[in-house]
């Protein structure tokens, strides 16, 4: 139950690579995490302004198409222009996804990438229309990635007040029933939508077992009115839509007689962030994600304590996890999620950057997108706000395993040229603790292709 480089790579990173040295110590892992974000620079996304320029153009084309449809021209030049633009912009949007894959495969700071994935899933959100879908990569980039080792309050605010989340959980349309906006439109009967408020309490902060009731959901929903994302995919606060008066959430009052303001919303988020139930919920979830489905209770307790002592400092909670002996239990129980499996395989195969970059839209779909879907984890897009399952059993389905086997037999041949000798590959990806059955399979396989697949399908590779 003490630090090991191999275990650090498997459990807190994207596995071993023949070309990247694994972490040398907990201190080194923390230093890297608290240092500069090299991967984001090396495999950069274009600035958000580029994405917004793209969405602007999409919106104009959509408008033109809608106008044409109203005029009875369903399949006219406007429709063709919209479809053509969609098709033309697809490779660029897919390239942003590819950059994410490259970071996981080639980063020297695997912990950072794993934490980004963990928190992006904790704040799962996706676009429900074309404009927002094109912004998905940038949601994680701007609302999650910069905050993973800071205060949870900052991450919470960045994520739940991000236009993507406001759009995903219908906050955009929620209006205070007694707000000037609603009062001036009596015929429209505009009012509250509880969706975001509920998920903030249930999923993002206190957890479903937390100390809140339906009335807190209701009050928080009222407090959130006025917060919305505008067409430029930017956060906007419109006091005219906000419910007047104070709201009481978990016994504390926010806002008041004066004009509603964004600060009231920020205040409730800050309070929720440091609530003991939030600490317990996050510590448990993180320990489950990284260590085991039933984590050591003392591990969880020390993570919770570190969180509370530092007013919700995520880097302190991460450090508490890494410094606890239970985090280094030798038995590997957690079963890799499909994304982790696939990227750790690419990492172990050391698929060159140029090879991955050269994959155009179709290739990326064939080797990454479609397989992830069959494995049950469509590329970073859970259907619900609760993200992907943390339960090993969920991923250990016959269907999921068959898909992993199918990928292991077909993708490495195409991506890693030449395909490594399985006898070397098994040491590359499993390090010093290779079970003898896997060593034997790597040696006895009838082809390189099958040898590599058998290593990838071994429990020693699939569990972390």
């Amino acid at each position, binding site marked *: 139950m003490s630090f090991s480089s191999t275990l650090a790579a498997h459990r807190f990173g994207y596995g071993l690579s023949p070309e990247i040295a694994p972490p040398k110590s907990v201190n080194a892992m923390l230093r890297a995490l608290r240092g500069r974000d090299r991967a984001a620079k090396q495999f950069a996304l274009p600035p958000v302004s580029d994405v917004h320029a793209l969405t602007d153009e999409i919106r104009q084309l959509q408008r033109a198409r809608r106008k044409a449809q109203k005029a009875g021209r369903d399949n006219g030049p406007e429709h063709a222009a919209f479809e053509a633009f969609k098709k033309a912009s697809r490779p660029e949007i897919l390239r942003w996804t590819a950059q994410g894959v490259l970071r996981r495969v080639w980063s020297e700071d695997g912990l950072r990438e794993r934490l980004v994935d963990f928190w992006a899933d904790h704040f799962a959100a996706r676009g429900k229309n074309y404009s927002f879908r094109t912004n998905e990569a940038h949601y994680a980039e701007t609302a999650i990635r910069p905050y993973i080792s800071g205060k949870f309050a900052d991450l919470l605010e960045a994520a739940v007040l991000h236009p993507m989340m406001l759009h995903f959980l219908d906050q955009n349309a929620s209006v205070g029933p007694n707000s000037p906006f609603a009062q001036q439109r009596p015929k429209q009967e*505009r009012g509250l939508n509880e969706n975001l408020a509920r998920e903030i309490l249930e999923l993002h902060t206190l957890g479903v077992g937390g100390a809140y009731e*339906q009335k807190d959901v209701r009050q928080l929903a009222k407090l959130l009115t006025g917060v919305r994302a505008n067409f430029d995919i930017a956060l906007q606060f419109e006091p005219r839509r906000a419910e007047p008066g104070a709201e009481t959430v978990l016994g504390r009052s926010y806002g008041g007689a004066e004009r509603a303001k964004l600060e009231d919303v920020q205040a409730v988020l800050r309070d929720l962030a440091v609530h003991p139930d939030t600490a317990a919920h996050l510590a448990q979830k993180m320990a489950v994600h990284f260590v085991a489905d039933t984590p050591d209770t003392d591990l969880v307790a020390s993570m919770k304590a570190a969180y509370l002592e530092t007013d919700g400092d995520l880097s302190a909670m991460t450090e508490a996890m890494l410094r606890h002996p239970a985090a280094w239990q030798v038995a590997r129980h957690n079963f890799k999620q499909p994304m982790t499996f696939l990227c750790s395989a690419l990492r172990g195969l050391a698929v060159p950057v140029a090879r991955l970059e050269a994959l155009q839209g179709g290739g990326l*779909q064939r080797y990454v997108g479609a397989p992830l*879907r069959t494995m049950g984890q469509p590329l970073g897009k859970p259907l619900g706000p609760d993200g992907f399952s943390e339960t090993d059993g969920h991923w*250990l389905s016959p269907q999921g395993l068959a898909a992993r086997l199918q990928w292991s037999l077909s993708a490495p041949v195409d991506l890693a040229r030449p395909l490594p000798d399985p006898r070397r590959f098994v040491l590359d990806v499993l390090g010093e603790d290779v079970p003898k*059955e896997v060593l034997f*399979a790597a040696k006895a396989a009838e082809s390189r292709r099958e040898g590599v697949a058998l290593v990838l*399908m071994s429990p020693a590779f699939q569990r972390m």
Partner: protein
Amino acid sequence: MSKRLTRRNFLTQGAAIGCSVAASPLLTPVSFAAAPTDNRLVVIVLRGGLDGLDLLRPRQEALLPVLRPTLSAGNKGEIPLEGGFGLHPECAPLYPLWQAGQLAFVNAVSTPYRDKRSHFDGQDLLEAGIASIEGDGVRDGWLNRAIGTMKGVDVQTAYAIGTEPMLLSRGDAEITSWSPDVDFILSQQGVALMQNTLRGDPEMSAAMATAMGLASKSGEGTMDATELEEAMDMMMDPAGKGARGAHVRVAEFAADRLREDARIACFSLGGWDTHFRQSNTLRTPLRRLVNTLLTLHNRMGAAAWQRTTVVAMTEFGRTAAENGTKGTDHGTGGAMVLAGGALRKSGVYGQWPGMDEAALYKRRDLMPTDDVRRWAAWALRSSFGLERSLLETEVFPGIELGDDPRLLA
């Protein structure tokens, strides 16, 4: 040179390689034993909270237009059923089933789950069939427990299908989970080596054995161009075009198995969480449900359909009143959908609680007047003859079965 195994040549060359395949425990095909009954049960979990009040619009309620001004406006295409309830226009293609006595609904039902209105807890409770999520949290499903108590039924005659494993069917009795678009090729030697590396990991070993067994029974070969395209669209837009095709394929797969020797199938349909502009957003999931039911009906063949009961249930209903964004929020009492040739008659069941403020649960949601598990229990009992006492203690601990609603003929 060793023989290549693919799903396709499994089917065509099954006899030729049968012996060597059967000799490997990893490759033993699942045997489709004959069940001692011809009756079939399909359980569909509607994830997200179906709005029963929009599915079956209570036109007899004076308060309906007050509580739901947008959602109750206009009844074009709506089908008047009985007791004043109008069926959502999107469900019009189901009308022939209603006329044939093969479609029914139960109003104002729910699980014992109350107040927190979390989808995820609500679904766990619905699938576990227990009264409370507190405590140890029972992690096996009621359907699994029901199969465990059924005498003389080879558990392998039951299938759960779909890309997500479901709690409903999780537990000791073996139900296999499969969706029909995976294929792989591995030499026999490779299979033997893999078996060896998985030996120390019972969970992985069992899942892989099932995968390989099922692969041999699961129809045609690899994904073709259309399917690949579908998969790509699905990835770009999980709720869009591709997803619309996927549910039909699942229904076709289920129908094919049920026509043969499977007697129980369960899967889920999502998209019911209609917080926003429900007049639009409810249409897609309803259409999927309609297409699923019609696919089962059309594909299963008259003889099998005649013995089939479909039970579609959801984790909770939605608020009696529209919310501020022309949708509805999480509620309590909801509706259950029943279909199949085995039904005794069409009808709208359930004790209707009314929609006056005082009649609502917490002045907010439709009051549940019955336990949804009781209806599932009667579907099980009527289909497979499960003992009342077993249903009340093992399958749905703590429920009272009460009087027979006489669902089936």
